[in-house]
Each structure stands twice: as structure tokens, then as C-alpha cells.
């Protein structure tokens, strides 16, 4: 996926790193720490650069790519009254939140591992503004509102001013458009300052190849910008140009999605090393139907068809291999799937779909050699799980590939049906389920 979310802390760090280059006339005190435990917070507080942790009232919240933390009761800003949170309160709060699984209102659940801790900024509701930028259709859009915080989401249409910025719009036109759309609700004496900030915010968003950047709320006290809450996604395809500007940035797994299994990680690592594409997501490790499909588009239609005909519960994995993987890479991919699919028994037996459309340039016989090698190693296990295998593929050298795999199945005593381009690509799913 081209757009990847980053932590609030990392987003703020990017602001701090480039502040002087982009935000002329504004100040930003980057006072934030990212910690993974209460103890780490206590340790940080001993360092001179984090002295403020001992001196100022604090705010603590998880920094794990999910929003609506306030509504989920996951923002610590008061013990008795707002602004009275001390270092030890925050450390204990973090420890408490880490002591059990957390379920969000959205239903996502998991353990909290990362927290951001910052000074409490006393301010009034009317000082909270909203600003964000993203791409809608083919244009950048800048959103601005005089009402920040949770308020902005209710009554979005009335409260938020949108500025559409086509890709070929000049800076002068963009600046004019932003100035003309400063929200009414911002006091007159602050309008100019807000416009100046918004323009610089947009340029920062644009030049650093953000896909999405939101500050909600931003509090402006004089020329001090307080970025109270931030959500950011980067266009990771721009990574090769942004090495300097982004630094070594982390793209964490979204909260609620269990960390990748060792098998998924191994495939992801193989993918990163290869010129070909190898993708694997385990949807249900106990699922009955496993797929090993060549090609991004074909993998989707197989998943669609299985969900339609068998129901999504039976679909064990999603993934694809494409772009001409080597025999070795294909064997590794196949073995990983065979390993996973022979871990849990299903009384109905297992179904393995070795599918694919008609390849443009991948040598089918070559990739099938990898699958055959894997079948040889795993034949006994696959038989133990009463596995029925359905093969469908076309493309360069497909006749040989199909013949080889059919012969291998006969030799190994595996149940296998083999089809070529004369059979509709997903029809093997129907056949497998009708057995």
C-alpha cells in the first residue's frame, strides 16, 4: 500500500526537524516523548533534555495509529482537575493501561505498547482550531476550521472550509485561495496569522510527501503553535526521494491487527529481497480453504469467489506470488502455506487452490517446479489432512507446468485436479466445493 500511517510522535518530530525551513514567524517547542512503559518514562525524566517532565503538568495517551482516544477514555490530562497530572501519575496510568487488553469503541482490541507524553497546554475551547490536508480525487484539499477538537466532526459541512488545490496550481493562486477561505469563526486579528500558518502547513505537507496530515486541535497562542493532536500518513512510494527529510521513520502495524505471524514476516522479508512479488496474509489459521494464487488481480477474484461460494470463515489466507519469482522463491512460498495449512484439523478435509490467470511473462513450468518440490516434502502431511488440490493456470510454458504437477501428484498419491486456460479462472473453486 502506498500510504502508510506514522506515529503522532514521529509526525511531530518531522514538524520539529523542518520547522525553521517551513514555518516562518511561528515557534514550536517540540516537547514530546514516546515511551513503551512507565519505567521508561521515569528514566527519561532523569535526562536533562526532558527536565520538563518533572516540572510541568502532563498529558499522556497511546500513540498507536488509532483515533478518538478521548472518546475511548485513553487520554490522561487530569487526576482531580485538568492540568494536575504529574510524572508519577502518568507512569502509573501507563502501567495500568498496559496491564490488560484494551477494546476500543470500534471493536478493535489489543495491548497498548506505545504512549506519547507531553506538557499540558492550558487553553480555552475557542483557541482550538482545526487544519488538515489530503488528496481527494486528483486534487489536494486543505481543510480549515475555527472549531477544533472533537467538535469539528459533528457538523463538518458547516464548520469546515475546504480549499481545493489542483496539482498544477501555482503558489500565488494557492495562497490567494487559502487567504480567501480562512474560517469566519477565527477572530479578525488572528486571521492573517492563521492564513500564513495554513499556507506554510500546506507546503510542508506537499514537500514532505504526506498523503494525509491533520492537526486537531491546533492551538495558537500569539506566535506559538501548539500541536495538541496529530494524525499523519506518508506516501511511502516517495521514500527513495525522502530519505534525508524523513530520516529513518517507522511504519507501525495498525492497532488491533495482531502483529504479523513469523510466517507472514518471513514472506514479507523474502518479498523485500526479491524482484518478484510475494504476499501473504493469514485470515483464519484454522480455515479450510487455502490459496496459492499467482497475480494480484487473480488473487482478489479467488478470494471473492471463495467468500461468495463457501463463506468468508472458510477462507484461510490471502496472498499472491507474481512478477516471475524463481523456482526457489516459489518453493519457499508454497512450503510456508503447506506448513500453515497442516496445523489444524478440519473434519471436512482441506482444500488447496493453486490458481492463477494466464500469465503475461512468468514461466509457469518454472514456478510449478518450485511448487512440486514443496509438494514432495509435504505430501504426507497434506494427505494426513485429507487435502484436495485444485490447479488452474495458463501462460508461457503452461502445458509443461500442468503436466509436471499432475504427474507429481500421481506419483505422490495426492488428490489433484488440473485445469488450463480452457476452464474459467475461478471455476475450480466451484468444483472444489461441489465435491
Amino acid at each position: 500500500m502506498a500510504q502508510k500511517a506514522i506515529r503522532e510522535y514521529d509526525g511531530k518530530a518531522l514538524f520539529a526537524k523542518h520547522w525553521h525551513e517551513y514555518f516562518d514567524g511561528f515557534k514550536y517547542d517540540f516537547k514530546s516523548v514516546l515511551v513503551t512503559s512507565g519505567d521508561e518514562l521515569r528514566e527519561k525524566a532523569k535526562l536533562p533534555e526532558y527536565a520538563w517532565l518533572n516540572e510541568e503538568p502532563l498529558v499522556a495517551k497511546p500513540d498507536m495509529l488509532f483515533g478518538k482516544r478521548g472518546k475511548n477514555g485513553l487520554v490522561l490530562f487530569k487526576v482531580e482537575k485538568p492540568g494536575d497530572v504529574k510524572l508519577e501519575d502518568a507512569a502509573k496510568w501507563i502501567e495500568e493501561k498496559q496491564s490488560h487488553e484494551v477494546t476500543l469503541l470500534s471493536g478493535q482490541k489489543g495491548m497498548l505498547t506505545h504512549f506519547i507524553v507531553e506538557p499540558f497546554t492550558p487553553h480555552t475551547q475557542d483557541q482550538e482550531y482545526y487544519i488538515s490536508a489530503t488528496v481527494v480525487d486528483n486534487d489536494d484539499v486543505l481543510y480549515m476550521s475555527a472549531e477544533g477538537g472533537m467538535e469539528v466532526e459533528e457538523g463538518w459541512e458547516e464548520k469546515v472550509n475546504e480549499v481545493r488545490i489542483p496539482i498544477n496550481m501555482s503558489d500565488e493562486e494557492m495562497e490567494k485561495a487559502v487567504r480567501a477561505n480562512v474560517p469566519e469563526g477565527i477572530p479578525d486579528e488572528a486571521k492573517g496569522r492563521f492564513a500564513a500558518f495554513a499556507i506554510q502547513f500546506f507546503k510542508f505537507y506537499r514537500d514532505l510527501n504526506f498523503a494525509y496530515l491533520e492537526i486537531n486541535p491546533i492551538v495558537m497562542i500569539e506566535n506559538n503553535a501548539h500541536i495538541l493532536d496529530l494524525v499523519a500518513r506518508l506516501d511511502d512510494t516517495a521514500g527513495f526521494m525522502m530519505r534525508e527529510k524523513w530520516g529513518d521513520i517507522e511504519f507501525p502495524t495498525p492497532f488491533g491487527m495482531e502483529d504479523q505471524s513469523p510466517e507472514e514476516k518471513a514472506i514479507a522479508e523474502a518479498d523485500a529481497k526479491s524482484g518478484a512479488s510475494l504476499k501473504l496474509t493469514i485470515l483464519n489459521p484454522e480455515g479450510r480453504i487455502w490459496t496459492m494464487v499467482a497475480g494480484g488481480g487473480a488473487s482478489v477474484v479467488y478470494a471473492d469467489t471463495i467468500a461468495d461460494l463457501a463463506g468468508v470463515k472458510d477462507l484461510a489466507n490471502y496472498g499472491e506470488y507474481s512478477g516471475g519469482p524463481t523456482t526457489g522463491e516459489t518453493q519457499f512460498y508454497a512450503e510456508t502455506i503447506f506448513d500453515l495449512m497442516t496445523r489444524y484439523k478440519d473434519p471436512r478435509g482441506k482444500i488447496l487452490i493453486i490458481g492463477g490467470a494466464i500469465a503475461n511473462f512468468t514461466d509457469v513450468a518454472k514456478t510449478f517446479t518450485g511448487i512440486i518440490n514443496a509438494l514432495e516434502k509435504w505430501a504426507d502431511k497434506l494427505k494426513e489432512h485429507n487435502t484436495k488440490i485444485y490447479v488452474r493456470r495458463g501462460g508461457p510454458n503452461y502445458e509443461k507446468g500442468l503436466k509436471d504437477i499432475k504427474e507429481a501428484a500421481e506419483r505422490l498419491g495426492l488428490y489433484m485436479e488440473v485445469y488450463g486456460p480452457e476452464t474459467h479462472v475461478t471455476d475450480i473453486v466451484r468444483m472444489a466445493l461441489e465435491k
Partner: protein
Amino acid sequence: MSNRLFTKDTQAIFWNNNKSAIQRMLDYDYVIGREKPSVAAIVAPTSSNKFEKFFYGPDEIMVPLYRSTKEAVANHGNADVLLNFASFRTAYDVTMEALDLGDQFRVIMVTAEGIPERLARKMNQRARDNGTLIIGPATVGAITPGAFKIANIGGTIENIINSKLHRAGSAGLVTRSGGLFNELCNIIALNADGIAEGVAIGGDRFVGSVFIDNLLRMEQNPDVKYMILLGEVGGTEEYKVIEAVKSGKIKKPIIAWCIGTIAKHFSSGVQFGHAGASANAERETAEAKNAAMREVGIHVPASFNELPQKINEVYNDLRKKGVISEIEEPEIRTIPKVRKPKNFICTISDDRGEEATYAGFPISSVATPDTGKSIGDVVSLLWFKKVYPKWATDFIETVIKTVADHGPAVSGAHNAKVTARAGKSVVESLVTGLLTIGPRFGGAIDGAAKYFKYANDNDMTPAEFLAYMKKQGIPIPGIGHRIKSLRNPDKRVEGLKKFASEHFPSTPLLDYALEVEQLTTSKKDNLILNVDGTIGILMVDMWRALGYSEKEIDEFIESGTLNSFFILGRTIGFIGHILDEKRLAMPMYRHPFDDILYDVQKAEEIK
């Protein structure tokens, strides 16, 4: 033309020397019987080769190679498709450079996946403003069966024929996915009569031409009778098609399906398929889009598995209505299973026919006096593969005659004579003479052409040129004579200058050289433009007048073409000297002791 994506005359410039993809295009060309290969030229920035060999059926052809798109465009003005096979790091720059070259390219196909989104948007907008159709990024391309196929689309030749991609059918096909494009072609061949035009628009989030751009063109393309659209979860492009159907802009029947219905089962995180395939809102889901399309009368099957029946239904209906008629299957040429690349290439003469030819002209048509052709004509055919006008062939002949001999004392003639006297054959004696030709003997022709041209190209005044050569520490080649001077001119030079002034259309470099001569002779009387200099300079003027580019002339100089005139001419003289020796039966030559300064020290021992 504008409503057909490609025709049988379409030619492309292929950016990146992707040999297997290009070979597949040429194989396709051969099978469908195209007259010209679909790849006019290749751009390979780091290659120093001038061409790449490919098979065309059983034979081989050469496709020219250039180091920049600009050069390729300059030489192939009719190639209006750019196949940009650069990597995701450079694909943007390659496209932008091509767009900067004006309106040469009607279509640019971009294959790279994962171009930074902002750059992709800039590139797509720029192309739109330019009126250029972008196919991609992240695509396998497009095809107009029976006319033109991009790179690997359609797969192997066997699959192309099985999927009826070798001749026009009646469906217009648009997909995102490249893998399923092939599959759809197969389905359409099995259930209908194949496609008339097909485009895989690409899997990245921001692609240049979208479904609607291609479908609107197909609506206007008389070869397309109905259209098939394979969409994906994510994005809202399908709604533009729905609008066009509603407003009546599209009237031809459409069959459509959006893949990715699976995505609804997973709230977030799992990326199904392409980068562009991620639903951000309810209306971007595959279900919503399939339902919305069905509502406006687009033919939407119940599932992907039922797409073949749907295609078959619509096709049969159109057959019944007479919109589609029976297609006559064309003859196809087959490609030999075993093809051997040739080790040698010849582009100047051919001895295979009835009579051997020089650059296409039978020898008899240039040999005898009644043909009016001279040695100059033969040189122009065999050296330059061109028929030069008479003034130029006369000049070449004049040069050869002028340099034929310069007496027995010059080093080459001397060598030839010594060897002949050692009892060696004509050919052995000749080569010892020829071997002396180089930078010091005969080389002034090359040098004069090179330096005078360089000075003239760079607008140096004669004084600046002299200063430049002094700085280089080289005496000006082509200037100076042992005894001749302005007052006692070299008659050979006079003759050449007279011929040039009477017959050349113009002589800019000679005019410049004469200005230089005025300056040099003002310093010393014998620093005149000599015969070597005059020949070299006039050769440049000749080529300029014949329409060669400065770059081509530079290549002539670099490759030693000028020296070749000297070698050819002086061979006549050397052979004369050798035959003279044979006739005189002179004995073995030994140089007299007293003509050698002996100064031999005892060798020091190094410990």
C-alpha cells in the same frame, strides 16, 4: 485515427532496451503481417551501441538505439507512442522529458509500479494538458488486435492466438489489472469473438487515463461494438462511467464487474490487490459499485464466476441484432521454433541475387563508362550507402587522384620499396607502406577537418583558434609546407579550391580556413593551407552541403573516414613503387653504416 488507439502503421519508441519485451512485439508484428516493425527505435541512455538486433520472423532486423528520447524523436518523427519502461525512480523524468519535446507523442505508456503519488499526479496532469493519453503507471499496456501490441501484453504468441488477439474482434476491454486482462481476453475469445481494442489502465492509485477516458474513445471507435469493464474495489472512477451511461454519452452496451467484494469482510488492514484498491467509503466498495452499475442498465453478472455467461449473452444478442457479424479468420504467419542469431551483418552490398549489387545497384550499372559512373560513385555507394551528386563524386575522384603519390622519399613509399627489395610480394610490400599511414603521415587530413571544424562550430575567430591550438600545444594540422608559400602556391591546392568554388553549393569551412591562413601567413610565409588541410576541410564542406548533420560528420572524422581517402589514393602510388622495384629487380637494401650515428653504452647491471 483519433478514435482508434493504434493502427497497423503505429510505431513506438521503446525507452529501455528490454530485449524480450521488444522481441515479443516484433514476433507479434510478424505474425499479423505488419509492414513496418512496431518498434521504430530504442532509447538506452547507457548503451554505446547504435542498434540492437531482433528477429523478425525467421530473419533478423536492426532497431536503432539512441541515448536520449530527444535523439530518437529527431530521427523518427512518425513514432507517436512512447513505451516508458524506466524504473519507478526515473519513469517520471522520462515522461516529463518526452512531453517537453512537444506533441510528438500521442500515447505514453508507463510501466513502473510505485511512482511517488505526487509525481504521478503531476505527470498525469501535464499529459492531459498536452492532449497526450497516458496508459499506466503500473500497467502491462494495451493492444489493438491485428495492429499493434505493447510489450508483454497478451503473453506468449500461442496464448495470443488462442485468445484471438491476433485479429480484431468486437469488444472493447478496459481493466485495472494486467494479469486479469489476459484472462479476460481468453474469456472473451471463448464466449464471444475477441476484442477490438484493450487497455489495462494500471494498478497504482493515480493513473493517467482512467476507465471513462478509454470507454469514451471506444464509444467513438467503429470497430468496438460493446465494452467490457473490469473494475476494482476502491476509488470512484466507475461512477464516471455510470454518469456517461446515464447522460447518453455512452450508448454501446457495457458489461462490467468490480472485483474485491471480499474486502467488506475485513474492516481494515488487509490490502487486497493493487495500491489503488482500497475502499475509503461505502460507495467505493465493490458491492456498491456493482449495484450502481446494474441500476443504470450496465450488464453486471452475479459474480465474477458468472462473467463468461454474461459476455456470451450480450454477444449473442448483438449477433442476433446484426450489430456484430461473422469474422473471417485471417491467415497467420508462424514463427520458426529455432532461430539462430547472425554473427555478421552487412549493409553495403549483396551477392545473393542474380547479380551482385553495391548498395542496391547492380555492379554492371555503375562499372562501364557508358553508365557515366566513376570511382567516386562507387565510393559513395560502398562507403556511404548513398548516391552522391556529380559534383561530390567528382570531388572524391579528384581527391583520390590528388593524393595518389608523392614520390619515393615519403615514409610509406620508402617502406614499400624496402620490402619489395627484400623479395616480398606486392601485397606484403603494400601493407608495410600502408602501415605508416597515421597521425604523422597522411593524418593531417583528419586533423585539419577535426580542428578547423571544432573552431568553426564554436565560433572561434581565427586569432582565438590560433591561441587555442597554441594552448593545446599542437601545430595546426593542414597548415604549413616545406617549400611552398603564398608567392609560390601549391598547384594541387589551387586546383582543389578552384573546383570547389566552381562546383560546391558553398564552402563555409574553407572560407574560414582561408581567413586562418591569412593570419598564419602574416607570421610566416610558408604557413599556408596545404593539400591535406584543403582536402579535409573541403570534405567537411561537401558533407555539410549533402545534408549530413554535424554529429554525423563528427562521426565520419572519428571513425577515420577521411584517412580512408588517403589510404585509397596512396595505394595506387605504393603499388606503382612496388612494381617499379620488381621491374628494376633491385637487390636487397641495406642501409649504409655511415648514415647511422652509433652511440652504444655498455649496459649497466641492476642489482
